[in-house]
């Protein structure tokens, strides 16, 4: 009995020491000596950040980069809480978040690492080919409820959206629903389905002819139908399909910059990694994933 007890104690002590945290885990500043980097934030950018991390680690085996999603809000919150080195965000940092960061002794520095377009997607059977920003705003705020009103079939419109913690959602709210007007208080219609991921949106779009949704260009698959969008407030109304060319030319109305934020000017490994991200090799990966590369300086 006593022999077994001491054996058990020994095993328990072993397990507890094995579970101790790595010394680099709660670093509040980018670690200069070890090549370890933590990268948290936007779900829109998570595949891109993963592809970058994998490519960089392939080329530099001594580096160790950890990537996770959770939303732009989560990433910036982690940067403020000093639990990450780099925060990915598909929206600009808000002034409240900058205040919070400064109160925590952090000065966020912004880098535009890629561009993204929001594609409006409908079921392939839907006859609609083009919509204006004003029509999109009316659809999503609940003013237009049937596809007939847009020239389509007699079907109710089912609106799909990302969850409120997604940067894509906030971007859509500000640029499409409110047409860029900061004082506008229009909200999504209460029956907008807030779906937890792009895959769920895709599943519903593919099978439901009533559905309309939006998502980053990188997540649109070939079995969805993309709608051309026009900014009807301009004199010369042209409906543009989203593509790398139209985004970089600035002609597609719903396009945005993708950001990486660091705590203060980056030094050491973080600076090395960020410099690499602006290299042609990394920007190629941006293109491969369906985003739009920034102009390399």
């Amino acid at each position, binding site marked *: 009995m006593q022999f077994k007890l001491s054996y058990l104690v020994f095993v328990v002590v072993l397990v507890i020491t094995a579970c101790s945290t790595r010394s680099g885990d709660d670093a509040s500043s980018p670690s200069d000596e070890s090549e370890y980097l933590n990268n948290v934030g936007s779900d829109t950018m998570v595949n891109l950040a993963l592809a970058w991390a994998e490519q960089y680690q392939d080329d530099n085996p001594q580096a160790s980069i950890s990537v996770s999603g959770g939303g732009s809000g989560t990433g910036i*919150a982690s940067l403020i809480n000093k639990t990450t080195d780099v925060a990915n965000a598909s929206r600009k940092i808000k002034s409240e978040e900058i205040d919070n960061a400064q109160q925590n002794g952090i000065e966020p520095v912004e880098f535009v690492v890629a561009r993204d377009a929001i594609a409006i997607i409908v079921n392939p059977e839907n006859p609609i080919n083009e919509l204006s920003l004003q029509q999109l705003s009316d659809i999503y705020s609940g003013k237009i409820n049937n596809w007939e009103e847009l020239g389509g079939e007699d079907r109710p419109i089912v609106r799909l959206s990302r969850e409120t913690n997604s940067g894509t959602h906030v971007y859509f709210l500000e640029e499409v629903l409110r047409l860029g007007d900061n004082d506008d208080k229009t909200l999504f219609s209460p029956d907008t389905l807030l779906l937890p991921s792009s895959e*769920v949106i895709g599943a*519903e779009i593919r099978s439901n002819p009533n559905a309309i949704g939006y998502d980053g260009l990188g997540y649109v698959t070939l079995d969805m139908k993309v709608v051309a969008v026009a900014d009807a407030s301009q004199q010369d109304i042209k409906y543009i399909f989203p593509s790398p060319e139209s985004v970089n030319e600035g002609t597609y109305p719903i396009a945005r910059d993708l950001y990486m934020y660091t705590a203060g000017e980056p030094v050491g490994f973080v600076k090395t990694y960020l410099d690499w991200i602006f290299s042609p090799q990394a920007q190629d990966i941006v293109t491969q994933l369906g985003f739009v590369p920034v102009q390399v300086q």
Partner: protein
Amino acid sequence: MRARRFNSEILITYLIKILGYSAIIFVGLIFYFLISEGFPAIREVSFSEFLKVRWYPIEDYYGILPLLVGSIIVTVGALIIAVPIGLLTAIYIAEIASPTTKEVLKPLVELLGGFPSVVLGFLGLLILSQYLREILALPTGLSALTGALILAGIAIPAIVSISEDALDTVPQSYRDASLALGATEWETIWMVTLPAARSGVLTAIMLGIGRAIGETMVVLMVTGNAPMMPEGLATFINPTRTMTATIAAEMGEVANGSTHYHVLFFIGIILFLIALVVNVTASTFVFRRKKRSERILS
């Protein structure tokens, strides 16, 4: 020799006592944590704001009513389906099925209860919601009805296994007495066996309620997460948003200590209180003292 046994007995009794009380301590600690993180919500957001019908926290709309109603709707819907089916299945397995059938059915029902809920949610999203949309000509299959159906599928195994055990526990003398008095088999089951097992059956139903109202992944994937208030009869086939899905979807983004954070914990308190009420109601039935007549007969 006797002295050593005496010491280890005291030690073991102590250990068991501590472990038993630790359950109370854990619940108390959880409750304390919920209150400390959720109570500031009442100070930061006026109570009337909570009773509004718009839930859009990133713009400071904190109306909890659609979420509460959503949770209640899917739970009630699930129970309307699960309780009759679960109860009748339990009655069949316990009272009517032959021993070989019973040997096969009982483990199968337990197996159904062992499915990870996220798998069922996935199947609901890809298969059930599409069928419902086509069969019922709905705008979308992501609705409260789909959620209720899958929650019923999760609650039924819980209800069946515990009800079946409760029915088994009823002494055979009750059934014999009833049949001897000339009652049919169904009259025996419905009017003698089932009432005798009612404390166990009610526990089973309470467990089903607890599982349904606390289920997160399934409702997150198939109800559409739209915070809508009920609109008459269409309520069941409209999308809805439950409290559990709200916490799961939004807890990741909130900054520690913000109003949104406190409100989410407040929603957690509401869920905790509902679970508490359900469990207290269940235990008053379980721990009721046996009537004198039952003590004599069994």
